[in-house]
């Protein structure tokens, strides 16, 4: 370990973990209400980022683009569109699959992911869009004095702090929505048992549609946050692959667990980069998966998930 780097990496990891947690939250939300594990979530994230970029003018000169909105308005427009996309996915892709085995539903979301990958490439092009209108410039750095760290201070980009605050706030709001509002309770009831939920007057189909719509919104929000840090490209979809270990670590049924799992994954990815060994530093892309294997072998249900009891 390269100890002077650790405090910096620790804080950076937690800050990155916020966005991972938010993305993981979207997957858990759909899993909880409809038992579909959404492998296409990463592609929704990517598509949301591209949509926002397009609404801000799509990299054209100011005033020359087809649509030229300020960032906040573009985000709102992208959120509305992605909610519609979520509803469409539920109606046309997942509803015909009700009652099909696990593998079929899993492959359905994988097929969706491929479709989104191709559609994004056709609509927006394959090259990296580095001109995403970020609210802060990369040189805006928050410096916290920290004796013993590298340079006796922790340097944090404003962008990173802002994404962390937005992601954590959004995650907390969605968890509150799920646990305390009437709609959220209806969604939880549906997750528990479809038939019982119907018998007390909950429209199960509407709940499925709603949860996909909300997942679309969460995905786009995550996409915008990622884009402000690293630009808009087709690679954004791979971040969701890091959200999977976060979900399994936190437990499939736990929204709070997804957020905490996101922090843990962000932390692990950042901390391996504080190592002195080049091999360990390079492993930051697979470190989450090594953690995933450990979780699967020791505690498959995750930290806050429900243990499955099988009855014949």
């Amino acid at each position: 370990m390269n100890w002077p780097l650790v405090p910096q990496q620790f804080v950076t990891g937690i800050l990155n973990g916020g966005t991972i947690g938010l993305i993981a939250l979207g997957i858990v939300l759909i899993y909880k209400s409809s038992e579909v594990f959404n492998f296409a979530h990463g592609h929704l994230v990517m598509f949301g980022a591209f949509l926002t970029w397009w609404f801000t003018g799509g990299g054209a000169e100011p005033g020359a683009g087809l649509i030229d909105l300020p960032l906040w308005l573009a985000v709102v427009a992208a959120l509305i569109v992605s909610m519609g996309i979520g509803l469409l996915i539920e109606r046309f892709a997942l509803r015909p699959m009700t009652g099909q085995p696990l593998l079929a539903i899993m492959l359905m979301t994988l097929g969706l992911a491929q479709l989104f990958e191709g559609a994004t490439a056709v609509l927006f092009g394959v090259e990296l869009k580095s001109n995403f209108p970020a609210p802060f410039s990369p040189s805006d750095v928050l410096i916290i004095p920290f004796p013993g760290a590298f340079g006796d201070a922790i340097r944090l980009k404003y962008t990173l702090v802002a994404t962390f605050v937005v992601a954590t706030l959004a995650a907390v709001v969605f968890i509150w929505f799920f646990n305390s509002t009437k709609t959220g309770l209806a969604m939880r009831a549906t997750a528990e048992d479809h038939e019982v939920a119907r018998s007390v007057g909950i429209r199960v189909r509407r709940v499925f549609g709603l949860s996909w719509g909300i997942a679309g919104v969460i995905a786009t929000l995550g996409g915008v946050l990622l884009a402000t840090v690293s630009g808009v490209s087709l690679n954004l979809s791979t971040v969701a692959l890091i959200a999977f270990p976060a979900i399994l670590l936190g437990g499939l049924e736990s929204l709070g667990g997804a957020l905490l799992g996101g922090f843990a994954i962000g932390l692990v990815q950042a901390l391996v980069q504080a190592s002195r060994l080049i091999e360990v530093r390079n492993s930051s892309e697979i470190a989450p998966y090594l953690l995933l294997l450990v979780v699967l072998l020791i505690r498959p249900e995750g930290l806050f998930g429900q243990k499955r009891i099988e009855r014949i």
Partner: protein
Amino acid sequence: MAMLRPAGDFDRSYEQDMALLRQPWHYWLLGISLLAAFTLPLWGDAYLVATANQIAYTIIAVQGLNILTGYTGQISLSQAAFMLVGGYASALLVIHAGLSFFIALPLAALAAGAIGLIFGLASLRVKGFYLAFATLAAQFIIPWLSRHTFKEYLGGANGAIEVPVPQLGGVNFGEVSNYLYISLVALLITTVLMFNVSRTRLGRAFVSVRDNDLAAELLGVNLFAYKLRAFFIAAMLAGLAGAIKAHSQRGVGTEFGYGLNESIIFLGMLVIGGLGTNLGPFLGVAFIVLLEDLSDLLGGVLAAAFPELSSQLLTSFRPIFFGAALMLFLIYEPRGLSHRWQLLRAGWRLRPFTR
């Protein structure tokens, strides 16, 4: 096979009951298709031969996946990673141990099988999509290891090493028209293997694990042992396919694919062909490979028409076509093309009483 047979068609001996080829037209069909496949270099053009070669080794990989996912019901997202293991094993044995390709090939298959066993151990603890995640981890870890460890052997960050051309008795297999015979013979062997696995004790145990693992355990099927056997066979066939692919492309490494995307495409091929059927891998692989060629053709035509958009048009049609085909099959024909074929056969036999 639970096929309804017409009255008067019965078996007189055990051998007849177990025969795979039971009608005269079975022999004719087999003979004609073998003749067509093995004389392909004589009458087919270069594109046809290359495509047939690609289809042949892809079928072997998908047959392995069929054992694991189709018959045993264990979802695997790491078939491409096991192909990578097989490709590297064969290449290293030929380059550094100086073995002949034809000895390295089965050894590479065994090496990939052994790696498959390691990740199959996860099936002791978890099942369903938890197991899918364990195999997903394998799909990330194996290619990463190939890029970051043993750099002088595995090619390092370039992600590729060169693989020599196989030779045997003066025949140079560098030409794809010669190489096709290696793929075809391997495919023939694995196909006979598949037919026999699926109808013997091993295959029946696999199916019972898939249909209800608790019931299978009560009937005396050792769940763990049979799951491991399924993992071993799947990884072994993937390794065989990977070794054949590596020597056919004369290079192996992450530069040549072997990513998560390929694993997903293998699963898609299997579902489109038909899960848990011996015909499925053939139909599914042929369908997807031809669909990919069609999408490349279409992308090329459109790219020529709109040159400023060519980069996005050339790359985007494959995922769109594959995703759309997979989704449509899952909604409208989840039992795949081989079920269509069964319906067609039943309709032909019961004619004129079918619509």
